[in-house]
Structure formats: C-alpha cells, structure tokens
C-alpha cells in the first residue's frame, strides 16, 4: 500500500484525470480523498493505492506530469499522521444501548444521532481503530456505514506545501 499526497487545481475534470491515470497504470485505488485547501483554488488529495514502491514512484511521477497537478509526493516512507472518519448507524434497543455506550467510550467515539431503534456513532482515527470498532459493533447489527477515506499529513517540520504563486510565466514557445 502506498500513500501519496497531491495538490491539484480545484476545477472540474481534475479528479477524472487523476483516477484515469491510476486506471491506465493498472493501479487500484484503495481510497482517495479530496478537499479544498486554505487556498480555495487549490485542492489537496490523499491517495492510498494498492501497489508496491515501484508503482508508487510511477504514480507519483506520472501524476506530476499532469498539467493540473501542482505537486505529487509519495509519503509512504515518511513519518505520517493518518486519519479516517466513519459514521456508523447501529441497531440500539433499550437492552443493548448501555453496552454500546461503554464501547463508544472505550473507542473515544461519539454518538451524534439518537433514534428510538438506532444510534449514529462518529469515530475518527487510524484505519485500524475504525476497523476495531466496527468489529465489536457488528454483533449489535450495523445498519449503515460511511467512511471518509484516509487523509494523511507528514509530522512536524516535514512540510508539504503547494508551490507559491509566481508572477512570471513560462517563456513563450521557441520554434527550433
């Protein structure tokens, strides 16, 4: 599994170019999240791909060839903070509810919606943590589940910023 971060132009069709590239390289995407950055014209993607180091390098280098990709970096080998967010709707009657609340506390999850027959639990953390909670909730009856996919950031001073806008532009084409 390889984790890549990409800064892209926040405009229509860019997601298609990125996913189409992975398809062309026969690389299966495990998760892909995208959202605007502090600069609304630039979006940040976290791509988790089913491939080896060589595939990760190819994906990184090929992504950065796309005109709309400002920067692509394979951060698999770096010290990373990874987060996934899940909403889990689970069956909860009078009997099971107290037991559920215990589990939620242990996993530091939150109840964000309460209905007579069910609860929605919000949990964030590493993939393992969410998988762990899911495992223990299953016997109660999981009705619905939504996951955000992973977002990743390198720790500490290891900064991954989009290039600062420059005033100058690439030189006009020279005919050789």
């Amino acid at each position: 599994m390889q984790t890549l971060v990409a800064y892209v132009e926040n405009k229509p069709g860019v997601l298609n170019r990125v996913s189409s590239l992975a398809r062309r390289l026969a690389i299966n995407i495990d998760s892909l999240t995208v959202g605007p950055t502090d600069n609304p014209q630039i979006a940040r993607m976290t791509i988790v791909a089913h491939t080896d180091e060589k595939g990760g390098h190819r994906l990184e280098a090929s992504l950065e060839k796309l005109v709309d990709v400002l920067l692509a970096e394979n951060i698999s080998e770096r010290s990373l903070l990874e987060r996934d967010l899940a909403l889990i709707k689970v069956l909860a009657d009078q009997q099971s509810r107290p037991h559920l609340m215990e589990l939620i506390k242990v996993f530091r999850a939150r109840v964000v919606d309460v209905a007579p027959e069910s609860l929605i639990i919000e949990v964030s953390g590493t993939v393992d943590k969410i998988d762990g909670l899911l495992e223990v909730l299953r016997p109660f009856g999981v009705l619905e589940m939504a996951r955000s996919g992973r977002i990743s950031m390198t720790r500490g001073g290891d900064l991954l910023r989009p290039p600062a806008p420059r005033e100058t532009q690439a030189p006009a084409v020279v005919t050789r």
Partner: protein
Amino acid sequence: MKLTGAEILCESLTKLGVQHIFGYPGGAILPVYDALGKSKLHHILVRHEQGATHMADGYARATGGVGVAMATSGPGATNMVTGIATAMLDSSPVVCITGQVSSKLLGSDAFQEIDITGITMPITKHNVVVSRAEDIARTVREAFIIANTGRPGPVLVDITKDAQQASCEFDWEASTPKLPQKRVRNDHNQEEFDRAVELLNTAKRPIILAGRGIMLSGAMRAFEQFVRTCDIPVAMTLLGIGCFPASDPMNLGMMGMHGEAWVNHAIQESDLLIAVGMRFDDRVTGDLRTYAKGARKIHIEIDRAEINKNVKVDAALIGDARETLEKLIPHIVNPDRAPWLAHIRELRGDSAVRDIQSLPDNGHLYAAHVINDLWKETRGEAIVVTDVGQHQMWEAQYYHHNQPRTLITSGGLGTMGFALPAAIGAKFAKPDSEVWVVVGDGGFQMTMCELATIVQEKINIKIAIINNGFLGMVRQWQEFFYDKRYVATPLVAPDFAALANAFGIRGERITARADVLPTIRSARESKETVLIDFRVEQEDSVYPMVPAGASLHEMIRRPNNPLVETATEP
C-alpha cells in the same frame, strides 16, 4: 479591437507563428473556417481527419515546431484519435483544434456531439474545453507551450461553437498564459551525477543507447562531443536514427528486435549502458530478465516517470539531454577503449553482412535492393517517411541517415497508414527538401485517399510502395511462429500505378532490379509527385529478428539461402 472567437483563434495562431493548418471542416467548426478564409493561414484540406493529425505530426517531426490539425465535432474529432495517440507515443508536439456543439447543448447528445476531451484524456499530454471567446487566445497560447516544452506531446483544444461566434475584446498582451504554478523540482542530484561520472570513467565495455530525446532537446552537437570524449560506441533506437551520423565509425546502427546481431551482442556483453533520451521499450530490450545482465545503467532522461519503469538503473540523470551531456563532458577522463572497440569490430566481422549492392541480379527484386538504391541515389540526404512493417525495418537497415529529422516514422504506436499523410506534412514543413514515402501495400491502402490532397495542393513528393502482396510483417510472424498459416495476410491491391493516374499522378510499376535506379532517377527529376509500385519478393523476411519476449542475444539469423545470401563481404 472586438473580434469573434473564431477570428481570435486565427489571429492567435498567426501570432504564434503558425503558417499551415491541416484540417477538415464541418458544422461545429464552421465559424473558424469562415475566419480562416480571411486570414493569411494556409489551410490544407485533407481527405480524412486521421490524415490531418499525421500531417501535423509529420510537420512537427520535420522541424521541431508545433504542427496544427483541425476538425469538426463528433466524427471529425474521433477520426483524429489514432493520429493523436501516434503523436503521444512518439512525443511529438501537435496541437489539435476541434469544434464542439454550443455550450448550452453540452451533454444533451446533440447532433455530432461527442466528449472528445474525455476520449483523448489518456492519449494527450493535456486537453481542454473552451466555452468562452475570452479564453481562446490564452488557452491556445498555453496549448503551444504545453505541447513543446519538457517532453513534447499532443494537446487538444475543443472550442464550443458559441465561443467561436461570440465577440469580445481581443488583447494579445493581456491574454498571457496562466498555466498552473507547478513545483519546480531540483532535478540535479549530485550523488547520482557523481556515480554516473564514476561509472563512465571506470567502465571497460560501455555502450551508449541513443534515442529521439537527443533530437527533441537539440543535443546533437553535445552528443557528438560526448561520444568523442568518452570514445564509446553508439547504438540507435529506431526513433533515434539521424541524431548521430550513420557514417560515423562509432555508430553501430539500430539495436533491438531487428537490430544487427553484433549490436545486440555488444549490448548483452557490455558492462555499462548509457541511455540518452530513450525509454527501454520492449522492442529494444527483449526479455528484461536477461537484458544486459552484466551492465550498470545510466539513464539521461527528461521524464521522471521513465526512470526505473522497465529497467532498473544505477544512476538517473533527470533533465534535458543537452544540458546533462554538457555537464558530464568535463568530468570524463582519458578512457582507453581500444580493446572493447576491437572486440566489437570482431563481433561485426562474425556476422553475415548482406551487402545488397554486390548481390548478383538473379531475376528477383528485393525490398532491400530498392531501399539501398534509393539511399545511394539520394546520397542519404532525403527526408524518408516510412509506414509500419517490414519496409520500415528494411529502411532503418539499408537507408543510412546522417542528419537528424530525416527519418520520420511511427515507432511507439506503430501506426499503419502514417507514412503518406506524415510525408505531406513534412513537405509543407520543408518545401525545399526531397521527401520520399516508403510504404507497404497494406499501410498505403489505409490512407491512400490523401493522394487527392497532394494533387489539390500541387506538392511534390515521391512515393515508393514496397509491394509484396502480403501484410508482410504479420506474414513473417505467421511464418516463424504460426507454422506458415497465412491467415488474413495475403492482400489484394489495386494497380497502384493506374490508381495514381486516376488521381492525376504519374505512376510506375517496377518488377526488375535493373529498372529500379533509372526509375528512381527519373522520379527525382520530375517536379511533380511520382508513385512507384515496386513489386518485390513476396515472402522475404526481415533479419535478424529477436522474437517478441525472447532474450536480445537469441536472434533468428539470416538463413543461408543462396537466393539471398550470395553476398560477399564488402
């Protein structure tokens, strides 16, 4: 100054230095054609949009500048797909402009609407839809920059009809390109550079692999100096042919599937490969597991995505070929290559050289005769545009190119039907050069409609059809690997000379060797296009051959056929 989008497009193309546009009109691009009529741009009406893209490609390959093709929406655009893919695989700077239905109709399956940007996404370097007249000038300028910087490639600009019709203020100065601000990588890695120098200075049996990147970077002089300084022999890829003179004693010739045996043996025995602007294509390496096993590898390449893609390298020098070579040259010390060069000379001596010139005339006409005579007669100075198949390989073997951009051929995609239209494009790019098409009877029949374009434009090119009545290369594979079961390869063709006449072009048919030279001579003397139908030996094969997937040293050698192999050493 207020102009329509269509007028802005023509103005912009003119300001970008465009003189020729290869295209075909239709409903969704009509406003542009109306504006074209009032501009100074020379529009060449093609007979099929595939031809337009190949012409723009041939134009680009002959000069290094950008070639421009134009088509309408829907089928006009989809007909361009093969030509765009051809340009993509060979890194050719082509800008395709397509008409699109009005922006209000987008997504409604309107008449001749097709999502051409969606279709061409994986086969263009970049593509874009323009739906506002205000964006046309800037987008076209950006397209030209993208197409011809870094590793070149095709760019498609799809312009909606309402954007062509709308009027807006045209301000060239204000419509400067606004390409996304990408990270600039510092590609110079001192560690890799030092390792490369160390490898270069310690190698005992090095070989340089020269590719098309040398031409694209304009590195011919630096490359020659590099070769002289290191005293390392050079093997060429098909698309690299011409970037280093074939007549140079350090030039071994083409490597790979149909490279000469000694070239492939030398590569397999080498202890260092220096790859310059080439991408270790499977046609060049054969089986990767056995490819140059004892060799370290240095890869000089502008595209990071090519590094370690097929072959794991020991030193990757990412960047422009000319700059990198110039940086390397001062670090080369005093190599002694005499034993290695002597060994390669020995290898060459061991191989059966088919000296086609001294072959006695035994009543058979071989393709190699034709190409060899063509080379001698044109003194190797013509621009030769080849199609795909046996004749393409024979041309690479028997026509010796000393100048860059004089062999134009579809390498990566291997597009049959490329030669005739690409040659038309090359002729417009280099009107004073002699342009020869060398094409098979199969590929010629794919795009021969462009003969009409030649007549309408009154241009002068020479067409040599290597006619063996088969889809020759496929037949050869059937002979070698499918027990001579010739399924769907025998090919009926029209009388090409008569066909040429029907178009108003002089046509000749040659069956005897003695007639080859005189006919080539008289064709060269003509100021008009001449087509020559060379009826060559039907079941001749290209040797040597590395079967697909086999090791580079496991070649099928030339058979000891008295018909073919009566040649003596020159």
